[in-house]
């Protein structure tokens, strides 16, 4: 009974977070704001759903399944990388270098400067 309550709560939580994430993607007005919904809320929603699946197979059916935990770890690692790449693509396409604050180092914003490693390779 307690297992069912916990699994149901996780499922409802996951569904709500998934819905909120996609609604944020649809409704927010700025591309940088729109990155927040899918990369945070949807990740938590899918994570709660997968943990509910792990608990269901362990507590109700008595099977130990590890694949869901692997998927959770993979999603939690990859979603910040996705967000970083899309933010860089947005900066590259929609903003000018003069719009951005200074970096405070000798090198400018990497999105506009090109690949420094490449330049070194050409000198060698």
């Amino acid at each position, binding site marked *: 009974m307690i297992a069912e309550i916990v699994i149901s709560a996780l499922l409802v939580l996951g569904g709500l977070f998934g819905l909120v994430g996609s609604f944020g993607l649809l409704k927010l007005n700025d591309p940088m704001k729109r990155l927040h919904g899918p990369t945070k809320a949807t990740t938590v*929603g899918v994570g709660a759903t*997968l943990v509910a699946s792990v608990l269901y197979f362990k507590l109700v059916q008595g099977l130990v399944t590890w694949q869901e935990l692997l998927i959770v770890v993979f999603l939690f690692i990859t979603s910040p990388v996705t967000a970083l790449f899309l933010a860089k*693509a*947005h900066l590259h396409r929609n903003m000018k270098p003069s719009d951005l604050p200074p970096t405070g180092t000798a090198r400018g914003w990497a999105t506009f400067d090109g690949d420094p490693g490449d330049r070194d390779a050409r000198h060698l």
Partner: protein
Amino acid sequence: MMTYALLFAIGCFGIALLMNLWVVLRAPGLPDKVLAADTMVINIIALIVLHGLLTGSGVNFEAAMLFAMTGFVSTVAFSKFMLRGNIIE
């Protein structure tokens, strides 16, 4: 009780998938469309896992794993293309 929670979660992720499809079709810029496609992949992973819960079988988890990997790789490839105009330089 768990059946109702399961149906609720499936409905939520289904509506989320429809919203993502709307963004893919009508978004103003290319990064938004790529982000919406990536979110569609994540929501589909959730739907696959929920289908596994509904039928009580664990055969679909490898499919969900493959979806996670190919979704991430395709999003990175799209972003690389938007940044550099090329994927493998």
